């Protein structure tokens, strides 16, 4: 459940941010989201996010690519228009298989890579012309923003965040913005 009131704490260093995340988590505050200009290694673990399943999708997409390559080459080179290349007119996919391995490999990689990227964008709810959810444009440059839920504990929270090295704090009523 999203909190109606949040605080945006801005950091200007990823190591400071990492330490801050651990501290805020230890104090049992709920971190809603973190915006960073680049992927910070280990941040997902520190935030306690569920592990990504993108690798599994990638494997499945690779299997699809491999299947497509096999069916495609079987249709093109064996069924539809059998060709005698290098004296190997065997009309059998299996016997001509080594010639198709590079294609099988390339299509596996192609499907895995492209579909994985598309999946990532869809899952992150990013598509062309979408209005940015990013609350502060500086997080695309050199600042890190941590969004923490506020439940009437503003004072305590702001002193804690200041302590962790936040350079800027901004309390926001989400109800107003929507």
């Amino acid at each position, binding site marked *: 459940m999203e909190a109606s009131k949040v605080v945006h704490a801005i950091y200007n260093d990823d190591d400071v941010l990492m330490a801050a995340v651990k501290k805020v988590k230890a104090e049992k505050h709920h971190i809603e989201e973190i915006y960073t200009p680049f992927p910070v290694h280990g941040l997902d673990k520190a935030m306690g996010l569920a592990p990504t399943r993108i*690798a599994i999708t990638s*494997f499945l997409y690779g299997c699809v690519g491999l299947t497509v390559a096999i069916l495609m080459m079987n249709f093109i080179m064996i069924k539809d228009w059998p060709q005698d290349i*290098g*004296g*190997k007119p065997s009309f059998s996919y299996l016997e001509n298989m*080594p*010639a198709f*391995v590079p294609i099988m490999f390339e299509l596996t990689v192609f499907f895995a890579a492209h579909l994985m990227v598309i999946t990532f964008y869809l899952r992150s709810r990013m598509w062309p012309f979408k209005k940015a959810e990013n609350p502060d444009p500086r997080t695309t440059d050199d600042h890190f923003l941590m969004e923490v839920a506020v439940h009437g504990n503003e004072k305590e929270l702001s002193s804690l965040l200041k302590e962790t090295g936040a350079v800027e704090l901004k309390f926001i009523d989400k109800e107003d913005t929507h």
Partner: protein
Amino acid sequence: MEYTISNRLKMASIVLIILGLIGVSYGFWDSHHYKTVDDVKVLLAEEAHHGDGHGEAHGADHGGTHATAGHHEADAHGESDEHAEEGHHMSHEEHVLHQIHNRPWAALYVGAFFFFMIALGVLAFYAIQYASQAGWSPVLFRVMEAITAYMFPGAVIVLLIAVASGTIGHYNIFTWMDPEVVEHDKLIQGKSGWLNMTSFVIRGVIFISGWALYRHFSRKFSIAQDNADDNKNFKKNFRISAGFLVFYIYTESMMSWDWIMSVDPHWFSTLFGWYVFASMFVSGITVIALITIYLKSKGLLEFVNDSHIHDLAKFMFGISIFWTYLWFSQFMLIWYSNIPEEVTYFMTRIEYYKLPFFGMLAMNFIFPLLVLMNSDYKRIPWFVVMAGIIILCGHYLDVFNMIMPATVVDRWFIGAPELGAVCLFGGLFLFIVFRALGKAPLLAKGNPMIKESEHFHY
């Protein structure tokens, strides 16, 4: 932290060596049951009757397939087939007699080369760590140094077996060592400037002394660095490692032509050196992982964490795929172009070695690909150990497939001589490696990268 080889491990390795010696001697004794062509005739008649051996009917059938195999070669350069080690006029029984006599030699050679190749692969890996100043690996340096202790004795053994097969033996591994063969063989005559006993020995000595010199000095500097106040030894190691890698990549390639590719003296492949390199590299890295996990299970090496195991497993995974890439590059080009003198290499293997030839592809490629793909599994020690054992068996088969078809053709089996050779050199390997492990502290504490390595975290 110190390690001393436990009595149990010492006993185990000695028992392995003795078992191995028994297996190897049995192999030699057994093969010399067949002294004359008449003995072989009896054997072939028996085989034709029972259809035993390894599931393939040689004997009566064998004459037919043999003739076809010979036919290709005859097309290629209008001379006798590649099995005709001693000119045109050898009967089928004579061939079989030679193959029977070759088997214990070839089995011994395969075992010796396999364990030597692990040590040389680790030496190259170790040099790469220094030359690239890798930050993650210095905690594993002492394990690597211990494994490379086997490089020198292992290499000398391989060279001695090769030379002995052409002097004490009856040219049992390398047919080009036989002057009678060379006399009737135009192709080998053309290569005899390179393929002759004298330059074979000279090259072997140059290779081995180069590798051994590097190993000696890098180990010396590494130990001297432990208690040094400055980084002088580390810098020296960096420099000699970079130099060694240049020397290594040339000599490893030439070694693979000399010690392996020349068993088929008519055949050549330009990427053979790389192919053998990939095999030794992945086996070496696998052994580093296995020994590290073993020592960790004994409560030693507590500075090695999951991330180090993860990285080693990543290398096992990656280099397995690299090996497959090279194997396939070699195979596909030869298969596609289908030039008789080239394709005969794979014809022999697919005709007589179907199981080991395609089995090794499953063990060295499909198995590590599927098993080690998941990131989490690379951190589970027993998982890495299981994968590692399969990879090592697969690369033993790889060496087997390189040597056996040229020496025993279809008379192969993995029996007493083969397993004996593996036990013999495996035991020797364990004994030397674990003794070397006890000679220095397990942590290279003076290495300037050691802090980074201890805190390595993925």
